[in-house]
């Protein structure tokens, strides 16, 4: 998306929760959720070439590292927004890592998780708070 002056307009859907380390979490059916990186992160990384993720069954605490995302220019660690168990990883990223750039909130999701408890969601950022955080 390109604005009039060429500046990129990045979206942060209201129904998601965000972290200061630029992950999002989309809660579905009570205690299951998708985790990915935000449009801001995807934009900063540039062309994603490789995503390395923890395996299914791994139980992680909030802020634990669950993988690494590499782009042509840089490499970044990925951190869990909340304590959770990984119940699926996005296999499509093996052959199509560019999905993270093309559709970070949709087909470019990283892992599906089962939440340990929903209370930690209160510590994440709303879309408005995250937007304010990244424009700072």
């Amino acid at each position, binding site marked *: 998306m390109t604005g009039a002056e060429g500046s990129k307009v990045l979206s942060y859907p209201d129904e998601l929760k965000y972290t200061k380390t630029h992950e999002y979490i989309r809660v579905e059916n009570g205690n299951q959720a998708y985790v990915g990186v935000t449009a801001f992160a995807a934009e900063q990384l*540039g062309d994603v070439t490789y995503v390395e993720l923890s395996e299914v069954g791994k139980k992680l605490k909030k802020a634990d590292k669950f993988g690494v995302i590499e782009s042509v220019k840089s490499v970044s660690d990925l951190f869990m927004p909340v304590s959770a168990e990984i119940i699926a990883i996005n296999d499509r990223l093996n052959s199509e890592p560019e999905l993270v750039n093309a559709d970070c909130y949709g087909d470019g999701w990283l892992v599906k998780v089962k939440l340990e408890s929903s209370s930690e969601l209160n510590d994440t950022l709303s879309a408005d708070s995250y937007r304010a955080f990244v424009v700072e």
Partner: protein
Amino acid sequence: MTTAQIRETPLSSAHRRAGARMVDFAGWSMPVTYKSIITEHMAVRKGVGLFDVSHMGEFVVKGAGAHAFVQYMIANDVNKLSEPNMALYTQFVMPDGGTVDDLIVYRRENDFLLVVNASNVEQDWNWLVGHINRFNDVSLENISEKTALIALQGPEAHSVLSAVVGDWIEKIPSFCYGQGIAEGVKIGFGRTGYTGEDGFEIFVDPDSADKLWSVLLAHGEHLGIEPCGLGARDTLRLEAALPLYGHELDDVTSPLESGLGWSVKLDKGEFVGQQALLKQKESGLSKVCVCLQVEGKALPRHGYPVLKDSVKIGSVSSGSQGIFVGYPIAMAFVPPQYATIGEKLAVEIRGAAIGATVVKRPFYKRK
């Protein structure tokens, strides 16, 4: 740099109009990418791309003593420039064999033009000034502020320049220099570049740079021209195994160690650094630069250890995805006994030893 102020090139407003992501590089605000590094990289390999490299430095050396002075300062042989409008790649070498900078020397009708790295302009200037008193009738001028530089690169670069300046440019050989008019704008250009493709580096007055940039983009539109940032410039030069100062060359790395022996002429007569390079050649090099094809998908990066049988023997100087060749690539320094083509080494990436094979330089060579 002694100044903390970030400088802008004459094309900064063009970059902002195009939605470039800007970064600070060597004291300059430069575009790192416009659309994406992969898009820009592939445009240059398959069609044509346009780069703002106005941050680079330009010095003019004039006078009856200019030839002798340049010859004394560089490791290549200036006599290879047998007539005006020829250019060569070379380095300034320190008395201990370390490298001050790498550069292109153009012999023009009445002077020499030296194009140096942005990050080294001040160091290079002081280096040249420090040796100039040995020579009579030489003047040195830093024209960096008065010069914008635009690189037009790729297999279709000639089509664009031809359409703008005239088809006589087709006859300019590689590493030669020409002058022309592009829609009223006076330009000088070398058939040179830093991408592994055919192309041109075009010198223009800063006041005309924006116009020239637009003219070249317009004439390249039907060929899919892309404005390209420093990101693609780096991935392109790495695939072509071209050295980057601060990575494959620095003050403790000689051009011989960096694999640039082809550009070092030890028997040409006296030059700064000659004795150290002769000694290196006689007694053997302690490290050499190799090209590594790396397995898997994780990317090798600057500083990562290079291993042989789990023991660290060297480190990566530059690494990335080889965007055109399609696998991770690295340049690395290792002791010469591990530099044979086919040698099996490993790169340590986040604690894991990832297989890597020494391959022929460069990774990519144009047909």
